[in-house]
């Protein structure tokens, strides 16, 4: 029972801060509520026995990516634009969002949500350690995707330097 209460608290904060991301006028406020939402996600990952993913969420998302976004917001100095009309197509957007939610809840009620269960139980995670399990899987079974990811990052670095350069 306390588990459900804590989940409701974290989920409520996550939903409210996500709504604030959509509703706030100033982009800096949007970014700060998005950081709050990411922290709620990290809490949920801890509750799902994935502490390493929670740490990665805080470091990569709430740390690196959001610092980049806030930096660009401040670089472009967007405060002057916030007084203008900041939304468009609200009615169509709301209809599409409600339909999306409707489809997702349809999937949830119709499908049994079961499948072939694996060997990763919470007891194994506490015994071996979550980081070690992730590392074993990533550097044996998923080694090729891991290497391809490094190429993707290299492409992103080169591409962003070329795009943001003043003159080629």
């Amino acid at each position: 029972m306390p588990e459900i209460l804590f989940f409701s608290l974290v989920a409520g904060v996550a939903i409210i801060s996500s709504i604030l991301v959509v509703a706030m006028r100033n982009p800096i406020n949007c970014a700060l509520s998005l950081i709050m939402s990411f922290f709620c996600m990290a809490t949920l990952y801890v509750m799902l026995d994935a502490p390493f993913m929670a740490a990665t969420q805080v470091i990569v998302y709430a740390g690196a990516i959001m610092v980049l976004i806030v930096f660009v917001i401040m670089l472009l100095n967007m405060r002057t634009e916030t007084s203008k009309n900041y939304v468009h197509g609200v009615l169509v957007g709301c209809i599409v969002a409600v339909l999306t939610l409707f489809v997702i809840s349809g999937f949830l009620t119709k499908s049994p949500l079961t499948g072939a269960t694996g060997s990763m139980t919470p007891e194994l995670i506490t015994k071996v350690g979550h980081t070690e399990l992730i590392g074993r899987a990533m550097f044996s079974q998923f080694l090729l995707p891991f290497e391809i990811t490094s190429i993707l990052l290299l492409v992103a670095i080169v591409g962003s330097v070329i795009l943001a350069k003043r003159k080629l």
Partner: protein
Amino acid sequence: MLSLHHYLILSGILFSIGALGVLIRRNAIVIFMCIELMLNAVNLTFIAFSRYLGNIDGQIFVFFVMTVAAAEAAVGLALMIAFYKNRGSIDVEDINLMKL
């Protein structure tokens, strides 16, 4: 007792809010943040399934989604800076060169 359904419902709600933000906002950076929100909702689904099916592959997927999101952030923000230099704003209504 907390079940898989709780996490999936939360994830669906967050995804819909993100989709709403992508559709209604005019500021390109806020649209970008809403895309990150949708990616996070999917990550939550992956980790919840991974926990309740006892399979670690979903968490590896989340790892790759995070990497792609980081690359996307770098390239997307560079695009926005380049666009701001050309037009002086990042309102998506001003991105209309390909409109008839």
